[in-house]
């Protein structure tokens, strides 16, 4: 019991540190990918290949002047970025990070909480995640911030529906809401992306909209809203808002890999004849590589596609994605009834 408890605490801290580290280096990767796609060099001054750039950015953010507008709601203004980063971190609790470890005869799952309703928990945290932006944007007492906050909330509510419906098809073919079970079944059979190609596409588009990433970054939209919900924020509060976006990217990449690309599973995993601990290490590495690929994909899309207009965004969400997701669900239901 005590070993399991200690292992859980270590796991929680490890995931927290990992999320922060990945988010920090995502900012570096974002600049490098942008530079690569635009035929530039990107940051290369701080350390070898500019590898210390996230550190330099962090120091810059912390040492900048902290400013709270006089007309703002002070408490809510401070609460906004904190809430946003809290909800960004919460999802990681239910993600299975690798196959179970075996230490001193005890099986230790690489998952903080294997709850019965894992998928719903993720959707719940995503739907609560909008409050950080809304509260921060409203408390700023600035019309651009308010417009950004309102855009963010309506966009997230609209795309949650299609996202939920496309996840339901996964639940239908798996027969369980537990993420551990979903990965386990993919490890036994085929990856869900082969069974649900349309569902995967819908989920991917919705994930872009939920994380407020380009081409759906209308809530911050520099050219129209001068930064949107974080216009009035400065110093590390702005840093937290930007940082949480990269955390959201990391977590949603992990969700895409878990739901559709077999999580920690890789082909011929059980034929290698390795011990459980080696397999756990390999599984985690493979899972991490999948996540990094999807983070790269987010950046690739950002520097390739132009931003949507707001009515186009709503049209795509309500009139294209939701009917498609419903059709996909109907087809999956009919298929599993007939065969």
């Amino acid at each position: 019991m005590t070993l399991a408890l200690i292992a859980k605490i270590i796991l929680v801290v490890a995931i927290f540190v990992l999320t922060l580290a990945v988010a920090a280096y995502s900012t570096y990767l974002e600049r490098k990918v942008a530079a690569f796609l635009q035929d530039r060099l990107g940051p290369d001054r701080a350390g070898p290949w500019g590898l210390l750039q996230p550190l330099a950015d962090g120091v810059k953010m912390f040492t900048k002047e902290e400013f709270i507008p006089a007309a703002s709601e002070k408490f809510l203004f401070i609460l906004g970025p904190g809430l946003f980063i809290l909800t960004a971190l919460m999802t990681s609790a239910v993600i299975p990070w690798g196959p179970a470890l075996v230490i001193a005869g005890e099986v230790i799952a690489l998952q903080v909480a294997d709850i019965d309703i894992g998928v719903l928990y993720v959707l719940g945290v995503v739907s609560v995640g909008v409050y950080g932006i809304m509260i921060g944007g409203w408390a700023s007492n600035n019309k651009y911030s308010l417009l950004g906050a309102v855009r963010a909330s309506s966009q997230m509510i609209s795309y949650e529906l299609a996202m939920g419906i496309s996840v339901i098809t996964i639940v239908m073919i798996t027969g369980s809401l537990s993420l551990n079970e979903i990965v386990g079944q993919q490890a036994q059979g085929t990856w869900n992306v082969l069974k649900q190609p349309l569902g995967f596409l819908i989920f991917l588009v919705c994930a872009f909209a939920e994380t407020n990433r380009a081409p759906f970054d209308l809530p911050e939209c520099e050219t129209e809203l001068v930064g949107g919900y974080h216009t009035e924020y400065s110093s590390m509060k702005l840093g937290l808002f930007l940082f949480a976006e990269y955390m959201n990217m990391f977590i949603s990449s992990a969700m895409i890999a878990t739901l559709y690309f077999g999580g920690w599973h890789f082909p011929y995993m059980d034929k290698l004849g390795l011990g459980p601990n080696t397999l756990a290490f390999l599984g985690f590495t493979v899972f991490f590589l999948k996540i990094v690929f999807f983070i790269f994909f987010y950046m690739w899309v950002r520097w390739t596609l132009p931003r949507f207009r707001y009515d186009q965004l709503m049209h795509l969400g309500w009139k294209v994605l939701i009917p498609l997701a419903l059709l996909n669900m109907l087809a999956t239901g009919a298929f599993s009834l007939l065969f």
Partner: protein
Amino acid sequence: MQYIFYTLAFFAILCALFVVFEKNPVHSVLYLILTFFSIAGIYVLLNAQFLFIVQLIVYSGAIMVLFLFVLMLLNLNKDTEPQKSVIFKTAGAIAAGSFLLVLVAVLKDTQQSTELSAMTDIGLVKQLGKTLFTKFVVPFEVASILFLAAMVGSVLLGKKELY
């Protein structure tokens, strides 16, 4: 376990009171969200995981976001809020008082079920789904038709200016 319940219940009631007494409507909505969160915590104590998460997704995640959305756009604040006349205030007090009376009358005679503890798995998704689709399938489907009607109605209202 009991202390957690009392803490959550106290917090829920406190936030509910703040919903009423807070002058700023946006603050009221934020307190209402906190109330919903504490009620969701009580569902966790009963091991009703599905109810807990649906409470979060539907009430805290969707309905309250729409409330906030509208209130933020309306830009209400205490200066522009019109003062209600005494008649309205008395009518409101009488209505709320009679509602309290009805609630107390209903809850007075219910048996205190001490059986409900974390040991039951009644609130898990599997049991809930089985019950909904076997024992209560007709009310369940009727409720879904009601939702469909509400959806059609709201679309029709939204399109009114076209005709």
